[in-house]
C-alpha cells in the first residue's frame, strides 16, 4: 500500500439540489506531505474533506484514502484518518481527559492503551493541568488543541484539518501552525483547507486552488507564484526624478513592459531573477542621473495567484453569498 497516494479523488461530484458543491474534483495527495486546499468560502473545500473522511457520499466519481475506497471500504478508511473540523467536536460536559479516552476507545484502542495515549496527548498539547476540567471551561485555543489531540489519538496516517485556524486569535493561530509543522515532520499526511493564502504558503508543500467545486490550479507555492508573472522590481523614485529617463534606464533589464504608477513615483519592472540584478539596475539608474529612494525585489504572492486564477480576491469569512452563486454557475 506504500505506493498508493494518501488521497486520490477522481471526478468527484456532490450536489445539493441544484448547487454543485463539488463539480468533478480531481486530486492526488502524495503520502507524507502537507497539502493545502485553498479556496474561498463555498468553493467546495469542506465538502471535499467530508467526502474524504467518509462523512458524505459523492454523487459521482470516487475517492480513496491510502488505496481504500471511502464509500465501500469506509471502516478501513476510518481506522487511518483523523478529522478536525471547523468547530471543536468535543463533549462539553466531560473532562478533557475523558473526551480523549472515549475517542481513543471508539477508535478501537484498548481501554488501557486509550488511557495511556490520552495522557501522552494531554502532555504533548500542554493540557495536562486542565485535563480534569470540563471542556466547557476551556478557552478557544485550548479547545482547538484538545480537538487536535482527539483527532490524533487513534494514530492516524492521514489527518484532515478543515480550516484549523478560522476564528482563532493570532496567538492560538501561531500555536496551531507550530503543531501542524510538528505533525508534518512526523510523516503524517496532512490535508489542510484554508481560505488564508499566507497559511497555505506557510504550511503546505503543495497547494490545490479550488473554486466552484473543481481544482483550478495545482503545484508548489513557488510554482503557483511563478505561474503568474514571477518576480518584479519595485523602484521608488526620489522627488523630482525624471520618469521617462528612469524607464529608459531600466528597460534593458526588464523581461516585459515597465509600468509606472499614476504620479510617476514608482516603477514596476518585470524581471527574471539573476545574480546581482538589483545592483545592476541601481547602477543603471545612477548613470542616467535618476535619484532613487528604494529598489526592492517583489515576488508574486498567493494573493496574486488567486486573483489571476479566479478574477477576485478571496472572500472574507462572513461573505458567502457570491460564493454560493459561483458554485451554482459552476
Amino acid at each position, binding site marked *: 500500500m506504500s505506493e498508493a497516494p494518501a488521497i486520490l479523488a477522481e471526478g468527484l461530484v456532490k450536489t445539493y439540489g441544484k448547487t454543485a458543491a463539488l463539480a468533478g474534483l480531481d486530486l492526488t495527495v502524495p503520502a507524507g506531505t502537507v497539502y493545502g486546499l485553498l479556496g474561498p468560502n463555498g468553493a467546495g473545500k469542506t465538502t471535499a474533506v467530508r467526502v474524504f473522511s467518509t462523512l458524505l457520499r459523492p454523487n459521482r466519481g470516487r475517492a480513496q484514502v491510502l488505496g481504500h475506497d471511502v464509500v465501500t471500504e469506509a471502516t478501513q478508511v476510518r481506522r487511518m484518518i483523523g478529522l478536525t473540523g471547523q*468547530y471543536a467536536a468535543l463533549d462539553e460536559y466531560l473532562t478533557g481527559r475523558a473526551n480523549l479516552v472515549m475517542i481513543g476507545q*471508539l*477508535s478501537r*484502542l484498548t481501554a488501557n*492503551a486509550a488511557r495511556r495515549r490520552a495522557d501522552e496527548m494531554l502532555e504533548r498539547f500542554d493540557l495536562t493541568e486542565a485535563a480534569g476540567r470540563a471542556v466547557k471551561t476551556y478557552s478557544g485555543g485550548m479547545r482547538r488543541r484538545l480537538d487536535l489531540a482527539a483527532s490524533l489519538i487513534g494514530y492516524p496516517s492521514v489527518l484532515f484539518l478543515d480550516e484549523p485556524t478560522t476564528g482563532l486569535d493570532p496567538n492560538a493561530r501561531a500555536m496551531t501552525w507550530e503543531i501542524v509543522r510538528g505533525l508534518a515532520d512526523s510523516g503524517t499526511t496532512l490535508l489542510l483547507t484554508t481560505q488564508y493564502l499566507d497559511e497555505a504558503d506557510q504550511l503546505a508543500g503543495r497547494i490545490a486552488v479550488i473554486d466552484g467545486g473543481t481544482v483550478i490550479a495545482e503545484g508548489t507555492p513557488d510554482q503557483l507564484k511563478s505561474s503568474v508573472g514571477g518576480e518584479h522590481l519595485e523602484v521608488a523614485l526620489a522627488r523630482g526624478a525624471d520618469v521617462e529617463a528612469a524607464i529608459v534606464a531600466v528597460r534593458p533589464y526588464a523581461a516585459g513592459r515597465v509600468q509606472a504608477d499614476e504620479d510617476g513615483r514608482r516603477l514596476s519592472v518585470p524581471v527574471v531573477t539573476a545574480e546581482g540584478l538589483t545592483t545592476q539596475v541601481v547602477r543603471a539608474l545612477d548613470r542616467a542621473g535618476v535619484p532613487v529612494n528604494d529598489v526592492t525585489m517583489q515576488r508574486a504572492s498567493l494573493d496574486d495567484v488567486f486573483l489571476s486564477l479566479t478574477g477576485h480576491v478571496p472572500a472574507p469569512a462572513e461573505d458567502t453569498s457570491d460564493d454560493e452563486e459561483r458554485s451554482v454557475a459552476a
Partner: protein
Amino acid sequence: MTAITAELVPERDVTYERSSVSHFATDVWVLTKRSIARIRREPETLADVTIMPVIFILMFAYVFGGAILLPGHGSYHEYLIGGMLGMGLAQTAPGVAVALVTDMSTGLMDRFRSLPMSRWAVLVARSIAELLTQLIGAAVVVCVGLAIGWRVHTGAADVAEALALALLFGYAFTWVGVCLGMVLRSPEAAQATGFIIFLPLTFVSSAFVPIQGMPGWLQPVAEWNPMSALAAASRQLFGNPNPAASVHSWPMQHPELAVVCWSVAIILVFAPLAVRQFRRKVLG
C-alpha cells in the same frame, strides 16, 4: 510541548481483531459511560426526573389537591402517584432530544462518524442512559409518594407489572424524543417542542384530575390519552382510587392493555421515523 516523532499504532494496543459484536458492545458501553459521567458531573441535568416530580407531587398534594374532589371519595394523595409516574417518565423524552441535537450541532456526531465505531451504538447507548434516568425518576416518584402517604394495597406482582408498564411507556416516549432530536436543529427548539407536546399530554389526562370533572367535549380526548391509560393502569395495580374505572370507554376499562397498545403504537410510528432520520443524517 515535546517534539513529535513518527508513530505507528502498537499492535497490542488495538482491538481490530475482535468480533463486531464485541466492538459494538464496547462502543455502547463507552457511550453509555459518557452519559453517566455527564450526569455525575452535572446532577442538575436530572432535574426533570428528580426535582420536577417532587415539586409537582408537593404542589398537587398540598395546594391543588384540596380542591380536587374524587368521585368515590378516595384519598387524592394515593390517586396522585399513579398519574405522576407517567408524567415523570414521559418527561424525559425532551431530554433525549436535547442530547441528540447537541451532539449533532456541536460536530461531535461528525467526529463519531469519522471513527471506526458503530454508529448505531450512539442510539443504543442513548436509550440505555434514558432507561437509567427513567428508573431514577420512577424511584423518586415512589419515594416521595410514600412520604406523602401513598400506599400500595396489592401484591409484589402487581407492583412489578405497574413498573414494567411504566418503563415500557417511558421507552416508547424515548423514541418520540429520538425522533425530535433527529428533526430539530437546536437544543432550545428541542426543549421548547418537548414542552409544547408534553404539557397538554400530561394535563389533558387523568394524571392529576379525574376525567369526570372535565367538560363533555374534552372527556373523550382525556380518555384516549395514553397518559390516562398509564395512570389508570397504575392505580388499578397499586390498589389506589381509580375513578376512571367507571368511565365507559375502552382504554379506561382495559387500561393495562391500553398502555401496551399505546406504547407499541408509539414505537411502531416513531422508531422507524427516528431510524430513517438517523440513517439519513448519521449513517449517511
